[in-house]
Every structure is written in structure tokens, then in C-alpha cells.
């Protein structure tokens, strides 16, 4: 079993072969699925905890503060302590709530983000399912989360929650278009919807550089629209605390609130992952044509770290937005989408098609 950190394909295949050799094929499949599931659960929890900590530190840095610094060195165990607190907290039952939907909503939100993460290529060979319509799948699945938000708002039997959920519905339905179209722009350039092929197509240069102006425009639109899709500031209207107290999750407490909270950060991670995969070369190292020595040094860093590094930079960008901008109003939010982003996006798509047809890209 050769373990090569730069290419895990052979490692995975040898595990696969080992399992199928020793177990009936049905049980081998079950074991494989369990391993992958557990790995994702762990990854999910670790990333969630880390992002909450990162957000608190980044926001503290922007706001002239220190941030969490009591629990453990530099406060790194703060989020763990917080989650233990949330786990132990009483779940306050809401008497007039629609119990079934009320309890179902957090799971829908968290499952949607869980499903999306399965299709993301973390590195060469670190890819749970490589669907031939990967990007389409991610888009479809990640927008399922809004159903959970709508259900939460509806079933809480709280006016603020309902307004928050309605806002969230209007917002996500609108911004889904921009996210989709900016993805399609890159699909046109890559010529494939399979995420592994999109990454492979960027071996000789990331799309943000090779795709000329349209790729850059698509990236900016993607960042705006995906920030809106994840309900984060300046587009956090669904939970605008100065208007709607906490919006759709006002009535949730304890672990159910933690689910919403975790899902928000995971959605941010997924969106940043997609941005990395589509625009910043996924797990591909940075190569500059002609600089052989430099390229070799870059190759030493394993693909997974490249991938995580790029994703964290994109996440930092999103945090930066959130902590500097005021919040938009709902009509301004919709105006921004339908009057500006969507026409620009459509035009951009045509431009990209033209670039690909005329072979203007590098």
C-alpha cells in the first residue's frame, strides 16, 4: 500500500481492492460508505469548529479586539467549549409550533450542506463521488438548504421568523440564478461539468488568469451571489438581528440552534470550495510559466494544503465583507440581482462563449 501524499488515487484503490478481496461486494461497499461517511463527519465537525473560531478571530482583528483568548492557548478551544455548552443546553419546546416541521428544519439545512460537501475535490484522489455533472449536483443540493430555512420560519409560529424566512426564500431564489450563471460561464470555458476535469483543465493556469476578463467578472459575481446565498453579511437579511432579532432561528435553542449555526459556516466553506475549484485551480499548485525552480518549490506543498489554503483565503474575503459592510435592504438586494448582476452575467456568458469560440483564452 503505497501512501503518496501527492496522489492518493493508488492508496484509495488499494484499500478498495483489499476490501473487495476480503468481503462480499455488498459488505465491502457498506464498509467503504461508512468509512467515507465517518471521515466526512469528522471533517465537517473540525472545519465547523475551526471556522467559528476563525471568524471570531478575524472579526476581532478587524474590530480592534483580541477575540477569544481564555480557553486554551489563543483561545483555540473556545468553540469546543461553546459547542459543549450548546449540546448540554435545554431545548426549549415551543408549544404552538408545528412540531414535526420545527424539528425537521435543522436537519434539512445540515443534510443539504452535508450532501454538497461529498462532491468536492479536496485533492488528487481525495474525492468522494466524481459525478459527471458534479457542479450541477453541488448547485442543486446546496440550494436545498433554503427549504430548511423556510420550514424553520414557518413552523416557529413567530412573526419575525416568518419574515426572515420569506426574505431568505426571495433572496436565495434570486441569487441562485447568478451563482448558476457564473458557474456556467466557467463550465463553458472548461468544457465539462465534472469537477475533477475542471480542476485538471487548470493544470497549466488557473481559470481566473487564463479566462481573460469574463472569468474575472464571473468570479466577482460569484462572490457577491454566493455570499448572498449563504445568508451572510452584508446580505444577512434573513437573520438581520437589528430588525428581526434572529430571523428564522429565533425560536431554536440548544443543539438545534447549533445545527443552523454549523450549517451556516459549512455553507460558507462549500461556497469557498466551489470558488476555489472553479476559479483558483482547485488543488493545483501555483505555477508561473518559465520559473522552473519556483514551480518545483510549489509542487512540494501537497495538493490538499493548496486546496485548503485557497479556500481559507476566499473565506477570509467573505468574512472581510461581513465585518465591514452595512446590511442591504430587501428591495435593494433584489434590485442588485435582477437589475445589475443578472444582465451583466448573461452578457458575460456570451462574452465567455465568444472567447472560447475565438480561442482568445490562454
Amino acid at each position: 500500500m503505497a501512501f503518496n501524499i501527492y496522489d492518493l488515487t493508488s492508496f484509495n484503490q488499494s484499500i478498495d481492492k483489499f476490501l473487495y478481496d476480503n468481503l462480499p461486494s455488498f459488505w465491502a461497499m457498506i464498509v467503504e460508505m461508512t468509512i467515507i461517511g465517518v471521515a466526512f463527519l469528522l471533517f465537517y465537525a473540525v472545519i465547523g469548529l475551526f471556522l467559528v473560531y476563525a471568524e471570531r478571530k478575524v472579526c476581532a482583528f478587524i474590530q480592534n479586539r483580541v477575540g477569544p483568548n481564555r480557553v486554551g492557548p489563543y483561545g483555540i478551544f473556545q468553540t469546543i467549549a461553546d459547542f459543549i455548552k450548546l449540546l448540554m443546553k435545554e431545548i426549549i419546546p415551543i408549544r404552538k409550533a408545528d412540531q414535526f416541521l420545527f424539528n425537521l428544519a435543522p436537519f434539512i439545512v445540515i443534510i443539504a450542506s452535508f450532501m454538497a460537501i461529498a462532491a468536492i475535490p479536496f485533492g488528487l484522489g481525495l474525492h468522494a463521488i466524481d459525478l459527471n455533472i458534479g457542479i450541477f449536483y453541488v448547485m442543486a443540493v446546496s440550494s436545498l438548504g433554503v427549504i430548511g430555512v423556510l420550514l424553520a420560519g414557518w413552523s416557529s409560529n413567530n412573526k419575525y421568523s416568518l419574515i426572515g424566512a420569506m426574505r431568505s426564500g426571495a433572496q436565495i431564489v434570486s441569487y441562485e440564478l447568478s451563482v448558476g450563471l457564473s458557474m456556467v460561464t466557467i463550465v463553458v470555458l472548461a468544457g465539462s461539468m465534472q469537477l475533477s476535469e475542471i480542476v485538471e483543465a487548470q493544470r497549466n493556469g488557473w481559470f481566473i488568469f487564463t479566462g481573460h476578463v469574463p472569468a474575472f467578472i464571473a468570479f466577482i459575481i460569484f462572490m457577491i451571489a454566493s455570499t448572498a446565498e449563504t445568508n451572510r453579511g452584508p446580505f444577512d437579511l434573513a437573520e438581520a438581528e437589528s430588525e428581526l432579532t434572529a430571523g428564522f432561528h429565533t425560536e431554536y435553542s440548544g443543539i438545534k440552534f447549533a445545527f443552523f449555526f454549523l450549517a451556516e459556516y459549512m455553507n460558507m466553506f462549500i461556497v469557498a470550495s466551489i470558488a476555489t475549484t472553479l476559479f483558483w485551480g482547485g488543488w493545483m499548485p501555483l505555477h508561473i510559466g518559465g520559473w522552473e525552480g519556483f514551480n518545483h518549490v510549489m509542487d512540494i506543498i501537497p495538493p490538499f494544503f493548496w486546496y485548503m489554503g485557497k479556500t481559507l483565503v476566499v473565506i477570509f474575503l467573505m468574512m472581510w465583507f461581513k465585518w465591514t459592510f452595512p446590511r442591504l435592504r430587501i428591495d435593494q438586494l433584489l434590485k442588485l440581482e435582477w437589475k445589475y448582476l443578472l444582465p451583466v452575467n448573461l452578457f458575460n456568458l456570451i462574452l465567455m462563449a465568444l472567447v472560447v469560440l475565438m480561442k482568445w483564452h490562454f
Partner: protein
Amino acid sequence: MEDLIITGPGIQDEEYIVNMGPQHPSTHGVLRLKIALKGETVERIEPHCGYIHRGIEKMCERLTYQQMIHLTDRMDYLSAHINNEAVCLLVENALQIEVPERVKYIRTILDELTRLASHELWWCAFGMDLGALTTYFYGLRDREPILDIFEETTGARLLQSFNVPGGLMNDIHPNFQKRVKEYITYFRKKLPEYDELLTGNVILQERTRDVGNLSLEDAISWGVTGPSGRASGFACDVRKHHPYSAYDKVDFNEILYTKGDSFHRYDARVREMWESLKILEQLIDNIPEGDYAVKMKPIIRLPEGEYYQRVEACRGEFGVYILSTGDKWPYRAKFRSPNFSNLSAINKMAAGFKIADLVAIGGSLDLVIPDIDR
């Protein structure tokens, strides 16, 4: 769904009644706004006051004038010093006492420091209302040195009760002038950051321009004063038009706009901070020598009659009305608090706008709830 729609007299069909407050993050206290919504649009607003009513006016009827000071602090706690000054000026004018020049200067300096601290806190809260959470920490960072100056000189950070009828409770701390001068140079550097972070932001402009317009006529008839009134073009700065203390000796501009929307109310306050710095600069080096108070009797009896004194508090015109029967306490005390009048115009401003605009309008009015309920 049925139980979400309240039906009853006075409530029209398809109106969605939402109670904003008394516990709500953006009412800045225990204010309750009953809002009739149609979708996200505000149809009308009914402010319900009284959640923090402490009967200050009634209590004043059994308090001597020196004791009254400690209650006026607690109305608009962010302009505590200015409120105190109103009572002191009233007593001094009624007894025709001329306070030393030194007192006038120190009072004016403390007034302007109070105004700066108050506007800084308002700026924090306004940013928070609009969802820009970072402003909060920027504003508090700059407010802290002012509170330190207060603490050193007056012994208290928020409710100073430093003014007493006849002068000040004590002389200023020897460090006072140095620290105020340090603060002026510090804040002159920091104030442009406020514009960079918030004023110039396109989202803020979109959120506040042409939102919650208040015409000059409405501002006058609803008695909207202070920066909120001046944004509508109502020249109501008491410091300028009826100078008290040392305001007649300083040169400053009254910030006047004509538009009267949330953005101009915002801008009027930010510009006012610059003017406050200007006033401080003119006074801080020229504090005359002399006594810090006139000797007063322990029990003051105002001659029989009615008295009124107004000052420019941080949010508008603050007035004290006293009806005296010659006793050691007033027969009737009435405070004209700026926030109460400013709040009364909120239905005029916010009707027809979105619920998010209501938050922006409320923020731009800079309401302090204990001042409304008294």
C-alpha cells in the same frame, strides 16, 4: 396561520401587526413600537412609552434643587452633564447669580466633551442598526478617553452630577487641560475614519438617502430639534440662537441641511463632531483663573414664579420648567425632553417605508429611551 393575524377594532384586514420591542435589539432600550405591516412595508407605527417611567418629574417636587441634579442625569444618561447644566442655569438665573467665567468655560468644555461622547456612541449604534458591526468598536474606542477625562475630573464616567447650582462641585483636575488637548489631536486623526468606514459606503448611502424624509414644516410642528431637526433645515441650535455659558465666546457653525432624510440626520451628527472639536480647541487654552463656584446657601428657595431654561442637549433642545411657590422644592417640575418630541414624528417619517428603513430611521433619530419616559 389564523392566530398570526390579529383581528380587532382599528386593525385593517391583511395588516400584519408586529411588536418591535419592548425587548428588541434595535430599539436601544425598552421602547415598544407597534407596527402595522403590509408585507415588508410599514403602514403605521404606534409608539408605546412608559416601560421605564420612573416619575422623575413627580419626584422632583419633593427634592431640593441640589438634589434634582442627580435625577436629571438619569433622563438622558448620554448628555448627563448638559441636563444638569439646565437646572443649574435655571436656578442661577432665577436667583440672579453671576457665576465666575471659569465655571462657564469649564461647563462649556464638559458640554462639548459630553456631546462628542454621545455622538460617538450614537455612531456605533447607528452602524449596528444597519448591520455594520465593526463601527461599534471604533466608536467605543474613541469614547473611552473622554470617559477617562470625566472620571479624572468629576469622579464619574457616565452620570457626573458635576454641575451644582452656583458653579461646579469641584475644580478641574490638574491634568484636565493636557488630556483634553491630547484627545483633540487624537480624535482629529480618528474622525476621518468614520467617514471612510461608514459615510462613504455605498450601501449606507443607499440605505439612508431619501429614507424617512421630514419636511421643515413637519419638523417644526412636531418639535423635532437637535441634529435631527437641523437636518430638515430647522435652525434650532440653542447654543447659537440663545447662547448660555461660554457659547457666545466661541465661533462654530450650525450644521443645517434641507433634505431631512436619514442620511442628512446622520451627516449632521458627524459634522457636529467636527464643530465640537472646534469649540473645544477655542476654549481649552483660555480657561480663566478664578473660583469654581459661588457660595450658595445649603437650601435654595427660588422666588415665587415660573421659570424656564433651555439648553442644547446632544439630541436636541432640553428644557426645564419650574413653578415655584417660594418653597425649598418646586411646586411643579416639567422637563421638555428632546427624545420624546423626536420620537413623536416617527410615524410621519417611517410610514410607507420598509421595516428595515424603520430601523435606519430610528437609528438616525438617536433615541435614548429613559429620556422619553422620564
